[in-house]
C-alpha cells in the first residue's frame, strides 16, 4: 500500500493506526466520545481478515481483547472515563499475565457520567494507578490526528515488544477534531510482533526470563499448552505464594518499563534562549500552549516547552533538568491538578511550579496560558 492523504478524526486515525500496526481484533462497547473507533473497525476489520465484536459491557470487551490476544491476534479496545473505570480490573489481569493489548481512553469530564461530550484530561492518575496493586503503566498522549495514528502504531509496538497493556490517552478534542494527515506507506513504520517461543513445546516455560526480562509468548492453539492465571505465578505459569518467587516477578513487571525507557519515552522539547519560564503540557492543552508561547514571544517573553508524547512513565529526569534552567514551570491541564504533582515531584523544589487548570468541559485557551506566563514572568 502506498501512502494516502486523508481528512480524518482523531478517533478514525486511531482505528487506521491500529490496522496499520496489524490489529486483527477489536471488542468494545458504545461510549461517547470514543464510539467512532468501534464504528470504523466494525466496517474495516472483516475486510482485512480480522474480527470486530460489540460486547455486552466494557468489562467483557476488555476480557475479549485479552482472550483474543492470547490466540496471537493484536487487539484493541476503545472507551472513555466510565468505561475505563470498568476495564481496570481486567487491565490488571493483562499486566500480571503479560498479555499485549492496546486500550484507547478518549477522556471526557468526570467523575462518574460527568460531561460525556466535553473534553477533559482528568484521567492522568487513573492511567497510572487505576487498577489495584503495583503494576507497570505506559500511557501515550498524542496531540494531533497524525500523531494519534503514529502513537497508536507505537502503542501496539510497545505492547507487543514489552508484553504489557498500553493505554492511549486522548481527549474529546483530539478524538473528534478533523485534520489532514498522511497514512504512511506500508513498511514505512516498523511493526513489531511479540517474541514467540523457539524452544520445543515440552521445554516451554511461559515466564522463563533466562533470555531476558520479556519472556516469549506462545499463541493458544500453536502446540504450546500453557496455563494463564491472574494469580501470582512462577516461571511455569502456575500459581505460587512463595515470597521468594512472588516479589522478583512483581519487580520484573515494573522493570519491563523502567529498563526500556529508550523505546518508551517520547517528548518534544523546544528550548528558547534565556527563558526563565517553561511549560509542560500534553494533548489538546499542548496545542493551546504552543499558541500561547508564540504570542508570548511576540511580546518578548521566551518560554521553553516540554510537550509529552509519553505521559507514563513520566519523564522526571527531563523535568528535573528543566528546573535547573528556569525559575517557573507552568502546567496547563484540563483537570484540577494531576500531572502537576508529578512535575512538582520531579523538580524537587528547584523551581516554582504553577498550574493552569480547567474542569468545566471547555478547552484551556491560549489566552489563559498567556496570562499565566505574563503573571510569572
Amino acid at each position, binding site marked *: 500500500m502506498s501512502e494516502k492523504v486523508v481528512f480524518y478524526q482523531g478517533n478514525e486515525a486511531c482505528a487506521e493506526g491500529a490496522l496499520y500496526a496489524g490489529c486483527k*481484533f477489536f471488542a468494545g462497547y458504545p461510549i461517547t466520545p470514543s464510539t467512532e473507533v468501534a464504528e470504523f473497525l466494525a466496517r474495516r476489520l472483516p475486510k482485512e481478515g480480522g474480527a470486530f465484536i460489540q460486547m455486552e459491557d466494557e468489562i467483557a470487551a476488555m476480557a*475479549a481483547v485479552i482472550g*483474543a490476544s492470547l*490466540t496471537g491476534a493484536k487487539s484493541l479496545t476503545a472507551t472513555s472515563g466510565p468505561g475505563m473505570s470498568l476495564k481496570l480490573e481486567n487491565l490488571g489481569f493483562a499486566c500480571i499475565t503479560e498479555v499485549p493489548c492496546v486500550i484507547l481512553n478518549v477522556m471526557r469530564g468526570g467523575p462518574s457520567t460527568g460531561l460525556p461530550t466535553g473534553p477533559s484530561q482528568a484521567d492522568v492518575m487513573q492511567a497510572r494507578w487505576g487498577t489495584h496493586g503495583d503494576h507497570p503503566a505506559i500511557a501515550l498522549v498524542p496531540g494531533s490526528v497524525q500523531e494519534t495514528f503514529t502513537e497508536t502504531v507505537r502503542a501496539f509496538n510497545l505492547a507487543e515488544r514489552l508484553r504489557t497493556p498500553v493505554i492511549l490517552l486522548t481527549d474529546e478534542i483530539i478524538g473528534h477534531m478533523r485534520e489532514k494527515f498522511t497514512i504512511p506507506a506500508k513498511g514505512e513504520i516498523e511493526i513489531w510482533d511479540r517474541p514467540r517461543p523457539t524452544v520445543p513445546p515440552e521445554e516451554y516455560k511461559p515466564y522463563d526470563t533466562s533470555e531476558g526480562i520479556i519472556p516469549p509468548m506462545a499463541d493458544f492453539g500453536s502446540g504450546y499448552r500453557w496455563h494463564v492465571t491472574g494469580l501470582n505465578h512462577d516461571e511455569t505459569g502456575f500459581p505460587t505464594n512463595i515470597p521468594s518467587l512472588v516479589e522478583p516477578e512483581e519487580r520484573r513487571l515494573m522493570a519491563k518499563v523502567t529498563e526500556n525507557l529508550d523505546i518508551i519515552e517520547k517528548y518534544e522539547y523546544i528550548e528558547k534562549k534565556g527563558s526563565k519560564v517553561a511549560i509542560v503540557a500534553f494533548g489538546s492543552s499542548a496545542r493551546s500552549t504552543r499558541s500561547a508561547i508564540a504570542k508570548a514571544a511576540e511580546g518578548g517573553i521566551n518560554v521553553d516547552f516540554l510537550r509529552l508524547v509519553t505521559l507514563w512513565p513520566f519523564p522526571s529526569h527531563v523535568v528535573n533538568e528543566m528546573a535547573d534552567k528556569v525559575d517557573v514551570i507552568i502546567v496547563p491541564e484540563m483537570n484540577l491538578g494531576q500531572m502537576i504533582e508529578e512535575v512538582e515531584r520531579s523538580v524537587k523544589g528547584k523551581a516554582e511550579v504553577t498550574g493552569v487548570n480547567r474542569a468545566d468541559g471547555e478547552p484551556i485557551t491560549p489566552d489563559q496560558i498567556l496570562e499565566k506566563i505574563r503573571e510569572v514572568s
Partner: protein
Amino acid sequence: MAFDYDQYLRPGKLPHIWCPGCAHGIVMKSIIRAIDREELEKDNTVIVSGIGCASRMPGYVDFNTLHTTHGRALGFATGVKMAKPSLNVIVVAGDGDALAIGGNHFIHACRRNIDITLIVFNNNIYGMTGGQFSPTTPHGKLASTTPYGNPDYAFDVVELSMGAGASYVARGTAYHAVPLTRLIANGIAHRGFSVIDALCTCPVTYGRRNKLGSGTDMLLWFKGNTVGKKIADKQPEKAEGKIVTGVFKQDEKPEYCDEYAKIIEKVGSQA
C-alpha cells in the same frame, strides 16, 4: 480397561485444592471423559475459568488453560473463540461466578449463541470464600451471609439459559457421573452455546450449615430426588417435587462465528 485420566492431567499438579467430600472432582472427570469421547485435540482446546473453587480446575488439566477474573470467563472465552474459531472452547464456572458477578456475560453468551460449552459447577454456595449464599442457594437456606435463612430466590440455570437463547441446555448431577459425561459431550459436539448445569455438592460450607449430611449423603440425595427428562415428560406425576435432569433444549440455530465468517466472506473481497 479403566479410563486413563493421566493423559489429560498435568503431572505434579495434584492433589487439588478441593475439600474432602466436594464433588468438583467428579465433574472434572466427567468433563475429561467427555473431551475424550469427542476426541478433542489437546493443542486445539482451550479451557477458561473465572474465580472460585470450580475455576481452579483448568490448572489441573493439560490444555491451553486460562484462569481469569471473577465472573469474566465468558468474556475472555468469547475473545479466544472469535479470534481463532478453530479452537474448541470450554468454560467452567461455579454458580456465583457464572450467575451473579458473571450474570450479564452469561445471558449475552446465551443470546449470541457462540460455540462455547459452559459447565456450571452448581453447588448452591460460594465455597472458596467460606459459604456465602449464591444465586442458586434455595430460598430459606442458611449461609454465612443468610444466618436467618435466605430471603432471596434462586435462579434456575436451565430456565435462565433457555430464556436467554442458549441452543443446547442440559442438567446433570455429580451422582449421575456417567450420564453427566454424555450431557457434556453432547454440549461439546453441539455447534452453538451450550450450558450444562452440573449439580454438585459442598458439604463443608453448605451441607454442614444446612444439616444435609456428609458429601456421600448429599450425593445420594441426588439419586432419590432427581428424575430424567424423558420420564418427567411422559409421567409428570413422577417428577413432582423433584429435580429434572437431561437435555432440555437442542436447537439448530446459526452459530455466531459462522455468521461472522459469512460477513467476512461477503465484504472481504472489497478490501
